[in-house]
């Protein structure tokens, strides 16, 4: 059963210079119990998509989609209150920069207890507070914080970024969500904590069947933990499919460049040799190229690339490129 089924999601921003299309017809599917990675560089619209799913974008953004289904129910057709009810019940999100997303004026204990919904706590109204306290402690243990007394009685600024991130995860899983959206959960953390966090997320996925949408700008850090992968460039979906398939044979030049620019995926590359890099830089939203947005930087761009390529598929491996890369010998 498809948990989330998004077809041709377009997110536009009204500016003085007219409409800017930040996300251009992106498809995204999520099955139950799946971990999907969403990879793209800054400004590629990954955070926008995440925010559109939980509907926290402000009024200036215009969201349209052919299909925006959550469990077969079109979210865009519902009224705001109904949307909030469903999203609040089923979807949780971990934002970037956890220490800034926590309330600086409230204790961790208060914030964590507030995030536990009443229907998770069984029993009558009497004694609910103490049960909530117990639940909060249990949640902290679950995310790997042993010293719950100190953490619960401190303010966010007193904690390190890693602990804040774990608290955010504890708050997110408090309501047993069906989908967890993790927006660059590990950018501010060092590598040992990163590994810990990913292990935590994978174990939650396996034990509870929670689906995860893992957003990152580094392909290498999340490739190991995801089943499926979607690669975005400048708001366009360039490639999606099984992680192993995409990594083994990228069809789109951008995915190829992304893989080649990481030394880890090139074990036979000698140290201190040049890395593969696309020329130029990511265009800004005001000056997006027409057609395929990779066009000006693409090594094998041709005349046809001024038209946006449609999404093509080869054995559940989707790519949008007029001239897909061919593996040697195949």
């Amino acid at each position, binding site marked *: 059963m498809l948990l989330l089924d998004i077809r041709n999601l377009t997110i536009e921003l009204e500016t003085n210079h007219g409409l800017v299309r930040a996300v251009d017809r992106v498809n995204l599917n999520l099955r139950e119990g799946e971990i999907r990675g969403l990879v793209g*560089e*800054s400004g590629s619209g990954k955070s926008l998509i995440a925010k559109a799913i939980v509907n926290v974008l402000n009024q200036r953004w215009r969201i349209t989609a052919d299909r925006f289904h959550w469990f077969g129910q079109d979210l865009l057709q519902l009224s705001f209150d109904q949307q909030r009810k469903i999203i609040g019940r089923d979807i949780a999100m971990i934002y970037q920069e956890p220490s800034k997303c926590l309330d600086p004026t409230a204790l961790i204990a208060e914030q964590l207890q507030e995030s536990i919904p009443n229907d998770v706590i069984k029993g009558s109204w009497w004694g609910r507070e103490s049960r909530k306290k117990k639940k909060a402690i249990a949640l902290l243990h679950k995310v790997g914080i042993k010293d719950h007394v100190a953490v619960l009685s401190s303010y966010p600024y007193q904690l*390190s*970024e890693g602990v804040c991130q774990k608290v955010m995860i504890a708050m997110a899983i408090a309501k047993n969500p069906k989908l967890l959206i993790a927006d660059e959960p590990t950018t501010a953390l*060092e*590598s*040992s904590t*990163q*590994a810990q966090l990913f292990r935590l997320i994978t174990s939650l996925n396996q034990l509870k069947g929670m689906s995860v949408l893992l957003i990152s*700008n*580094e*392909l*290498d850090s999340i490739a190991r933990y995801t089943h499926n992968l979607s690669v975005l460039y400048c708001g366009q979906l360039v490639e999606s499919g099984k992680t192993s398939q995409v990594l083994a044979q990228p069809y789109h030049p951008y995915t190829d*460049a*992304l893989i080649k*620019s*990481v*030394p*880890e995926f090139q074990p036979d*590359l000698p*140290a*201190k*040799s*040049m*890395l*593969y*890099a*696309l020329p130029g*830089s*990511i265009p*800004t939203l005001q000056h997006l190229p027409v057609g395929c947005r990779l066009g000006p930087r693409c090594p094998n761009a041709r005349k046809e690339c001024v038209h946006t390529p449609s999404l093509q598929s080869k054995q559940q491996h989707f790519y949008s490129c007029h001239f897909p890369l061919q593996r040697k010998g195949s």
Partner: protein
Amino acid sequence: MSCLLEVTALCKTYRKQHGLFRQETIKALENISFQLHAGKTLAIVGETGSGKSTLAKVLVGIEQPDQGEIRLAGKVVTMTNYRKYNHVIRYLFQDAERALNPSQKIGDMLTDVLRFSTVLDNLQRQQKVLESLQQVGLMDEHIDFYPHMFSAGQQQRIALARALILDPKLLILDEALTVLDPTLRAQIVNLLLELQQQKGLAYLLISKNLRLVRHISDHCIVMQHGQVVESGPTEQLLTQPQHAHTRKLMGMS
């Protein structure tokens, strides 16, 4: 091969006041020693709070060391000859966007650096500015641009130009590559490697990204609580880590 930078028994403590009489001393650096040769890259790896950034600050002269000796090309460095010193060691900040003055044109910013620490005249300065912009792959007309008109990758290039304009021998990269997007980072890494080959620049790379460390560094130091727990050639250290902390950083344990 000559030894460019030699650090012996460097110590740095911070004092933290608790009330009127009680004081707590925090040892940020304890007995740090290492050598760096010209044209090589030394990587410093460690968790946050392990003293990596303090070490960089001490080296570049933002902080004074309590004990120990920094020798630059054989001469002991004291902070009194700071002007001479900052020709040789330059610092590249983590966030280029915040390290550049938003109200100053690129050309003016680079000229200021020269005016402050060289004796070049106006024309020579102009020439030098253009030269350093070309070196990092920017164009002459960019001197009239403000920082916000550039993309993140270009801003990092400008910061690099500002660091390179004094022809330094050593460049300290304090997490300068971590925040960049992968394809931009590949570009900057290529640029840095090229400069190293051409000019024999030495780098001190402070990074959390072990994959990057493996690719560009020759030697590697692992720090924990202000102490060096392990050091050695990068390839050897990362394939056969001896210390438990190194293994933890690599996510192996």
